[in-house]
């Protein structure tokens, strides 16, 4: 029994299905992300876990208790809203203390609890400020504090860093990660920012069109996407059409057209791929190398170079293919004609549908 169990949950709005039979398990203490493009149903799924939407079918349980029809104010969850939803008529102290009313603490007890929380999120001394006197980053902290002070079993975060500028967002990512380790609460984050999900989370569920495509750790997701949509959504990737010629015990041989005939580890092929199947070979830009020799390489012409400091990004055009190949390398930029190497261990075979 997992800590959070979402089982076969579906939701539609006026006939349009938004979440389709999603099943999901999150372990206690995990930092878990729902990642997907806008409109993929991730926020609706989060809102069903918080209790703001009622699923049409399926069930949700948290820590062994069924929550499917429990109203939000009785759930052991708290949410950080994308808009933060800080109460504009209350100051920082009263915002953070808002959810502690039912605990009937003494005045000193309440003050101590809020003070401790303010320390945790580094907003000491700002308890008297009203929300319109706070910066975006400070409001975000207040929203976090207001939720965390209730010690929820599960903290739900809806694009919590989306409204912050890039520098602040990166700083908050580090802090959020440290905070999650410190408080030990299970975090469920919704984001469309793949970099944010990869850097923050233990595991990620990639969603598209109301379904979960793949659930895996960041590295697994990046190195072994299970379908084209996941490969495309996480980072940049090059695709080549190929067909399977032979499947052995540990290796598989594929005919990759322009790239020639290649032998790659069998585990690099997605599940369900069989002999003679037409597949997509995928490889990340940083896994393609430049070579001096001609043997086993593909000739190409650099058509575009972007210098990015510690590495450069190239677009290489090869004969017989209209779309240039993306290559990322820290090597000093070669010019003109180049020889590209495609190491077989980094080539992933995906179903071509």
């Amino acid at each position, binding site marked *: 029994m997992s800590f959070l169990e979402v089982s076969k949950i579906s939701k539609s709005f006026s006939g349009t299905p938004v979440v389709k039979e999603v099943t999901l398990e999150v372990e206690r203490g995990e930092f878990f992300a729902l990642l997907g493009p806008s409109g993929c149903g991730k926020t609706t799924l989060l809102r069903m876990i918080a209790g*703001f939407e009622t699923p049409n079918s399926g069930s949700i349980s948290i820590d062994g208790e069924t929550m499917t029809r429990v109203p939000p104010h009785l759930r052991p969850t708290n949410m950080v809203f994308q808009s933060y939803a800080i*109460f504009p008529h209350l100051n920082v102290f009263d915002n953070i203390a808002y959810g502690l009313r039912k605990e009937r603490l003494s005045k000193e007890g309440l003050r101590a609890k809020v003070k401790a929380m303010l320390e945790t999120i580094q907003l000491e001394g700002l308890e008297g400020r009203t*929300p319109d006197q706070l910066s975006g980053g400070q409001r975000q902290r207040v929203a976090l504090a207001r939720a965390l002070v209730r010690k929820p079993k599960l903290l739900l975060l809806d694009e919590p860093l989306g409204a912050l500028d890039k520098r602040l967002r990166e700083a908050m990512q580090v802090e959020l990660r440290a905070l999650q380790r410190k408080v030990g609460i299970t975090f469920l984050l919704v984001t469309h920012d793949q970099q944010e999900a990869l850097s923050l989370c233990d595991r990620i569920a990639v969603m598209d069109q109301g379904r979960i495509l793949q659930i895996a750790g960041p590295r697994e997701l990046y190195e072994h996407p299970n379908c084209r949509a996941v490969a495309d959504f996480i980072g940049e990737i090059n695709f080549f059409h190929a067909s399977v010629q032979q499947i052995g015990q540990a290796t598989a041989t594929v005919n990759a057209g322009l790239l020639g005939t290649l032998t790659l580890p069998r585990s690099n092929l997605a599940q369900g791929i069989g002999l003679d199947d037409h597949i997509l070979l995928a490889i990340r830009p940083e896994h393609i190398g430049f070579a001096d020799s001609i043997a086993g390489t593909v000739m190409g012409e650099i058509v575009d170079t972007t210098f990015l400091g510690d590495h450069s990004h190239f677009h290489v055009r090869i004969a017989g293919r209209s779309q240039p190949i993306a290559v990322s390398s820290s090597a000093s930029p070669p010019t003109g004609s180049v020889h590209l190497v495609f190491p077989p261990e980094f080539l992933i075979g995906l179903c071509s549908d």
Partner: protein
Amino acid sequence: MKNRGLLIYALAYLAFLYAPVLVLPIFSFNNSEFIAFPLSGFTTRWYQNLMADGAMQHALGNSLKVGLITALFSTGLGLTAAKALTRYRLSGGSAALGFICLPLFIPDIVLGLSLLMVLGWIGLPLSLSAVVLGHLLICLPFALTVLMARFEGFDPNLEEASADLGDDGWMTFWRVTFPLMLPGISASLLLTFITSFDEFLVAYFLSGTEATLPVYIWGQLRFPERLPMVLALGAIILIFSVALVAVAEYVRNLGIKKATVGA
């Protein structure tokens, strides 16, 4: 030259709007029973007569009662309707909104007449209560419009956040919705009160023997010698109405800035 033309136009427009209204206070201090220029001297005797007129004070009391009750009920009903129409996915929501606002477009004389007939059929006596019912029809659209605008001005996530932090619907209303709606609620109370207080036709049909202030004034117009006193009364009502509307607008704007603090 062009600007000068526009200026003259604007001044003429303002004069057209407000000069007739200014006649009221001017003649209310004129020492003559006849409403005509030239003015014949300053007096406050019309105001003194007014203070001594028991029937007028009774009518004023009636109007205040009707206005107050109408304001409270239409704002209360408007609040629940506005919340439902702005916060829930209602089937038939826009139809409901249309029907609530329809009385705005029905001539008051038609409204008054039809209410008079219906009251007769169901055997309800003409009374101030009947006037309140009629005024509710007229005031509810105003209350709803003001309150809906206010609901749309604040983030629905705020109410969800309150639920998320452990408050049920009732506590959420008192701790979040009501304080944030307060400027809208006050504006609605003032607006509906003024609308009811000034309303004549429906009150004329439904008030029976208990006249409201506008009905009383209408009755006084038959006696030429009482006309200056009516002007004095009109001047007082005018000043109070303008002041109330100004306060309502001020309060409404006061809240708009505060409620829009977001991310």
